[in-house]
């Protein structure tokens, strides 16, 4: 049984002509213990996917099975409880409460579980020790560096011992050094047996992932298994791509990114439908390039 199974999940916003598709029949299966990096341009549906997997959002169509249990149609309260017990969130903007100390922030999810204060504090302290910040327990977020703040946020995500950790651009607001610190921590968490899904714009960070999913226009475009420590092959292309747009390309409004989107033997094609769509796109690309 897979941990996560998205069955043709779509998310639409608006009605009629104004309908916009955030997720377009996404089918995705994630096994327990995977570390999935989700990449893609802005507006490609990464965050919607994260919200969907994190039970913050409900699919318009399709089904979502978490641990084999259909969770896409559960009540608001049920989903809140699943979030509380099984899912840990890490955000780009850290989202710590400024009025609370690091320890209180970490203990917050346990409050909603109804744990007593001594128990909450004990567990929060244990987790803070694990992320190496136990000496900062009584610091307020504003007294911590960006990296430390995100580590506290990670501790908060871990405190309820979740099966799944969802990180939406955890390093987006951090410098390289802090990013490394945070990703090392996430990698460690993954190694200790947790399932981690993280969104990133930095191809370098796919080194920490065992699988890279590339999204575009609300659909999964590439989905490849990678080895830990290796940059995903597709990500590498994004990373090392030399912009080689000609004047013609510019005129046609075609970015260099489109050019390198050639089918690759190493990447798995997720679905026939996707493939067909890609084919049509490729055709138009070629057409534009030659024109």
């Amino acid at each position, binding site marked *: 049984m897979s941990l996560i199974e998205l069955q043709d999940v779509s998310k639409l916003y608006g009605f009629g002509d104004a309908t916009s598709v955030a997720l377009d029949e996404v089918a995705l299966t994630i096994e327990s213990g995977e570390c999935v990096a989700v990449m893609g341009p802005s507006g490609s549906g990464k965050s919607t996917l994260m*919200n969907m997997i994190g039970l*913050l959002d409900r699919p318009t169509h399709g089904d979502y099975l978490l641990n084999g249990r259909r969770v896409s149609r559960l009540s608001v309260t049920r989903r809140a*409880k699943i979030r*509380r017990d099984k899912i840990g969130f890490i955000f780009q903007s850290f989202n710590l409460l400024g009025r609370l100390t690091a320890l209180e922030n970490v203990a*917050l*999810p346990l409050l*909603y579980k*109804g744990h007593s204060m001594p128990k909450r504090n004990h567990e929060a302290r244990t987790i803070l020790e694990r992320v190496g910040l136990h000496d900062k327990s009584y610091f307020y977020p504003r007294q911590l560096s960006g990296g430390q703040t995100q580590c506290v946020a990670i501790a908060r995500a871990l405190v*309820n011992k979740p099966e799944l950790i969802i990180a939406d651009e955890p390093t987006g607001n951090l410098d390289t050094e802090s990013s490394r610190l945070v990703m090392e921590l996430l990698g460690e968490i993954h190694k200790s047996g947790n399932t981690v899904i993280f969104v990133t714009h930095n191809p370098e960070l796919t080194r920490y992932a065992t699988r890279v999913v590339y999204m575009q226009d609300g659909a999964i475009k590439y989905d490849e298994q990678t080895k830990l420590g290796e940059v995903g092959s597709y990500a590498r292309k994004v990373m090392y791509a030399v912009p080689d747009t000609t004047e013609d390309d510019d005129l046609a409004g075609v970015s260099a990114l489109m050019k390198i989107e050639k089918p690759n033997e190493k990447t798995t094609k997720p679905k026939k439908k996707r493939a067909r769509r890609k084919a049509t796109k490729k055709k138009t690309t070629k057409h534009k390039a030659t024109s």
Partner: protein
Amino acid sequence: MSSLHKGYLRLAMQSIRASRVRSFMTMLGIVISVMAVVVVVGLSEGVKQQVGNQAERYGDNVLLVRPNQHANALTGSGLPGGTGVLLTQRDVQAASASEGVSIVVPMSSIDGDIFGDQTIKSATVIATTPELVDVINQGIDYGGFLDASDGDHVAVLGSDVALHLFNDNAPLGQRFTFRGQSFIIVGVFKQFVAAPFSLEADYNRSVFIPLGSTEKLLGTAPQINQLFVKTKSDVNVKQVANNVQAAITASRGGSEDTVTLSPGDSGASSNQVLQLLALMTVAVASVALVVGGVGIMNMMLVSVTERIHEIGLRKAIGATNRQILRQFMTEALALSVIGSILGLVGAGVVIALLRLYTSLQPVVVWESVLVAVVVAITTGVLFGSIPALKAARMDPIEALRHE
């Protein structure tokens, strides 16, 4: 679950402490209205007790006989009456003859200017008999009270008049002129306990002269505004009151134009007015309480709007709608409880200050404290539930996106 409630309380206190000024502003409505209710009810109750005390000061065996048409009049100062029905010596005799009566003291009010070292315009001059001092339980500070052997040209002053007329606490032996007659001051009363809103004259501002002098002053028999009737001991005061009333009515040929007040009901008419006043103020204060509730609602709506992001986060990490609702309800509850406590403290201070620095003697009425607090907390929680519901129903994604 109790730990969870403690948790909510901690959260609420944290959020209240985090924005102290705003929290205080939020509470202000509740504070003021609780204060208003407790102080106003305390004031009117205090005045009521003072009026009651005044009746007691005369002694619980002292009746008052007054012209009936003025029994409900609202003359603030001066003895009631002065026009219309007046009492006469015949009534005095009828009252004296009634069973169980020991002393009858007539009180006759004469207006006019008094010329001493200073002049007092339209002073209250009360012509009465020497027995007055036996009836009203009031001590003389200097000198003595009127005495039959002194003749008619003596006077006893209320303490305020003494000061005003001669700038002297004890102007004994001094003279003043009133309606062409000269009076020698033989005594000064101790300060009377002032009773605000009372029907009684302010005796501190009155001059007491012998009843016998009225003939010379006015050229007629004294026109009596009020009788103090002291009963004998060991008699039923109510029964004596009935006897007196019957005797006077009989002497007036069945005309019921006088009224006899027993100690219990001597302040009755003013009590009704006071009660009405207190009721009206409580009504106004209740409106203030509702306004206080609206204040809590508005400030909490602001608070919720400011914390949309926080609410989103709390929901993301697993807070259910109910838990968010409880958190904000607890905050509203805490605000109204703290507001009520501050209001009570404020009311206590105001009451203490009033007792210290004014003649008013407000008291703390526990029922009003209870009602004010219960109403304050109820409105606070009721109005607080609106923003709390708004917070609870927020969509976590939308809320998280909100900065």
